[in-house]
C-alpha cells in the first residue's frame, strides 16, 4: 500500500507541432484511497494514469509513489498493477498462465504462484476457467482475469484505465460492484480512469475532473455535485446535464434574473442577489439541475417560466421534460405525471435556492443558492 503524489506533472507531445496533453496536475492520493480521474475523451486522464504507471515519459514535474520519486523508474519496478480497457490478456496463455505470468517473471517458487493464483481465482469466481484461453471467455470473465492478474501481484497501487468500457451495461454494473468490493477487501490505493460519471460518482472516494489537460476540480463526489467549482464541472457531472442560461441580474426590491434577449425572467431571492452584487447589472450564467426544475399548473409569484413542451421521455420512475422558453432549452426531471400534448405551453418553476451562478468569462462559480452552503 502506498500514497501517490503528483506535483506539476505535465505531458507534452512533440509529434507534428507541440501538443500539451497534460498541463500540470497536482494530486495527492492517500494510502488506501480510491481516486477517480474523469473527463471527456482527450482530457489527459489516461495520459496522466500512464505517467503514473511509467508507460509514458513525464515532460515536467514529479511523480512519487510512497514518497519515492519514480520519474525514471521503469514500470516493473514501480510495484503497480494496471487493468486495461481491452483486458490486454495474453491470448496464447491459459487463464492460469495469464494470472501467474508476472509472478513467474519474478522467479517466485512454483508453490507460491499456485497458491496466489488459486486465491485470486477464488476471489473472482474464476476457479472453473483456469485452463481456458481468453478467447473462450466472455467479456466479463476476461475483465475478471485482468483484475486477477493485478491482484496476484499484491501491488502497492492499482491503476485502472477505463476497465469497464468494453462491457455491456449489465456487466458493467456487476463489475463495478466487484471493483468496489475489491477495494474494500484489499484496502489498497486505487487510481481509476473513466469517462463515465456514474462510475466516477459510485466508486471514488475523491474525483479528479479534467478537461483539456487541466484539472478542473478535485473533490468528493457529493461536493462535485453540490458545489461545482466551475461551469465545466457543473455541466459534466449529472445526467441529464445542468441547465445553463446566460442573463443579467437586476437588483432592487424585487431582484430578478433576466435571460439574454429578455424572452423570460424569474425572481431571485434577495440574499442571492446581494451575493451576486458585484455582478449585478453585469452578465452571469445561471445553472440549474434538471431535478430542481418542476412543472407547475400555473404561474406563481414571478418565480416561474412560461415554456413550450418539446418532448417528454418517460423512464417509468421519472420523466425527463424537454421544454423551450424563448431561445432557451430547459430540461426538467420530474416524477411521473400526466403531460399535456407536445407543443403545448407549460409552466416551469425553478428552485432558486438550488441554483448556481457562474462568471461568463472565467467560468468560475460566483455563488449558489441557500441549499448549497459554502
Amino acid at each position, binding site marked *: 500500500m502506498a500514497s501517490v503524489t503528483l506535483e506539476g506533472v505535465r505531458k507534452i507531445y512533440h509529434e507534428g507541432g507541440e501538443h500539451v496533453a497534460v498541463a500540470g496536475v497536482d494530486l495527492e492520493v492517500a494510502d488506501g484511497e480510491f481516486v477517480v480521474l474523469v473527463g471527456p475523451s482527450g482530457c489527459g486522464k489516461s495520459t496522466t494514469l*500512464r505517467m503514473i*504507471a*511509467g*508507460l509514458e515519459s513525464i515532460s515536467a514535474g514529479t511523480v512519487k509513489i510512497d514518497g519515492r520519486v519514480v520519474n525514471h523508474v*521503469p*514500470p*516493473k519496478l514501480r510495484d*503497480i*498493477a*494496471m487493468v*486495461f*480497457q*481491452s*483486458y*490486454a*490478456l*495474453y*491470448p*496464447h496463455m491459459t487463464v492460469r498462465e495469464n494470472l501467474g*505470468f*508476472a509472478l513467474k*517473471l*519474478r522467479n517466485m517458487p512454483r508453490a507460491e504462484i499456485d497458491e496466489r493464483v488459486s486465491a485470486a481465482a477464488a476471489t473472482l469466481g474464476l476457479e472453473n476457467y483456469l485452463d481456458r484461453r481468453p478467447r473462450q471467455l466472455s467479456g466479463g470473465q476476461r475483465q475478471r482475469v485482468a483484475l486477477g*492478474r493485478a491482484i496476484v*501481484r499484491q501491488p502497492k497501487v492499482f491503476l485502472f484505465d477505463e476497465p469497464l468500457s468494453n462491457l455491456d451495461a449489465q456487466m458493467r454494473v456487476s463489475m463495478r460492484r466487484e471493483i468496489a468490493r475489491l477495494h474494500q477487501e484489499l484496502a489498497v490505493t486505487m487510481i481509476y480512469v473513466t469517462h463515465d460519471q456514474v462510475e466516477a460518482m459510485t466508486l471514488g472516494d475523491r474525483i479528479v475532473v479534467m478537461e483539456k489537460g487541466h484539472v478542473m476540480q478535485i473533490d468528493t463526489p457529493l461536493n462535485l455535485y453540490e458545489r461545482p467549482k466551475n461551469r465545466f464541472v457543473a455541466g459534466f457531472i449529472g445526467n441529464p446535464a445542468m441547465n445553463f442560461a446566460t442573463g443579467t441580474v437586476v437588483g432592487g426590491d424585487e431582484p430578478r434574473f433576466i435571460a439574454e434577449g429578455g424572452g423570460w425572467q424569474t425572481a431571485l431571492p434577495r440574499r442571492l442577489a446581494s451575493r451576486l452584487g458585484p455582478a449585478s447589472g453585469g452578465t452571469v450564467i445561471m445553472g440549474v439541475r434538471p431535478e430542481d426544475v418542476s412543472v407547475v399548473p400555473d404561474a406563481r409569484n414571478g418565480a416561474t417560466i412560461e415554456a413550450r413542451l418539446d418532448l417528454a421521455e418517460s423512464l417509468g420512475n421519472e420523466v425527463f421534460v424537454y421544454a423551450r422558453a424563448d431561445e432557451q432549452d430547459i430540461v426538467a426531471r420530474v416524477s411521473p405525471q400526466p403531460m399535456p400534448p407536445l407543443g403545448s405551453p407549460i409552466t416551469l418553476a425553478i428552485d432558486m435556492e438550488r441554483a448556481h451562478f457562474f462568471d461568463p468569462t472565467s467560468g468560475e462559480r460566483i455563488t449558489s443558492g441557500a441549499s448549497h452552503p459554502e
Partner: protein
Amino acid sequence: MTAPRRELIVSIVLHTVLVLGAIVALMPMAWMLSASVMPTGEATAYPPRFFPSRVTLEHYEQLFTRLDLGRYLLNSAFLAFTVTATSLVINSMAGYAFAKLRFRGRDRTFRLLSLGLVLPVQVAMLPLFLLMKQLGLVNTYWGVIIPGMASIFGIFLIRQYALSIPDDMLDAARIDGASELTIYWKVVVPGILPILATLAIWTFLATWNDFMWPLIVLSDAAHYTLPVALANLSGEHVQDTELMMAGSVLTVLPVLAVFLFLQRYYIQGIMAGSVKG
C-alpha cells in the same frame, strides 16, 4: 430450371475446370517422376511415352555414387535451414520493432527500406558480390547466409502483421515485469506464429530453389547447392534426360514436403491480413 439444379450444374462445371487445371499443373511433375525411373534414352524417344517400359533406379544410384549428389543435398539443406532460422529471428525482431517500438526516425527508416522493395534483385547482385569479395566471403557458405539473413520483404511482412498486436498487451507485459526481450519472445512471437510460418516456408523455398546467387558466389564445386549442381549436370550430360529428371525429383521433394507440412499455417498467414479487422 430450379435453383438447386442450377447450383448443381455450376458446381459440376466449376469442379471440372478445377480438375482440368490441376491435371495441367501436375502433368510436368508426374512426367518428371516417371522419366526419372525410365531406362536411359526412353524419355527422349519418339513417339514420347508417359510411362516407363520398365522401372529402374539406376539414375538415382548414379547421382549418389558417381556424381556426389548427397553432398549437394547436404549443402542445400544446411544453407536453407540456416538462412531460414536466422532470417526468422532477425526479420521478426526488426518487423516488430518497426511496428510497435517507439524510436526516433522509425517511420522514415521504414519508408526508405520499403523503397528497396521495388528494386529487382539482379540490380543488387553486382554490388553485393563486390561487398562479399571485400569481406572475403566469396566461395564460403557465409556468402550465401549473410545476404539472406534479413530481407526487406520479410521485415515488411512481419511489420504489417505485428501492427495488429494490441499496445495494451505489450504495456501489460511491461507492467508485469517483462523485459523487452521477454516481451518479444513470450508475448509477441506466439502471437505472430502464423506469419512466421509463412515467412519460414517462403524463405526456405526461396533459398532452396535459389540458383543465381549461389552460382555467383560459390565457385568451388564442393560448396555447390542442388540447383547449381543440377545445372552443371545438364551441361556435362546433355543427352541424359532421365538423370536430369532424377536430380530434379530430389531437388523438388524436400520443399514439397516442407510446403505440405506447413501449408495450413501458410494459408493462415496469407489470409490474416484480410480477415483481421
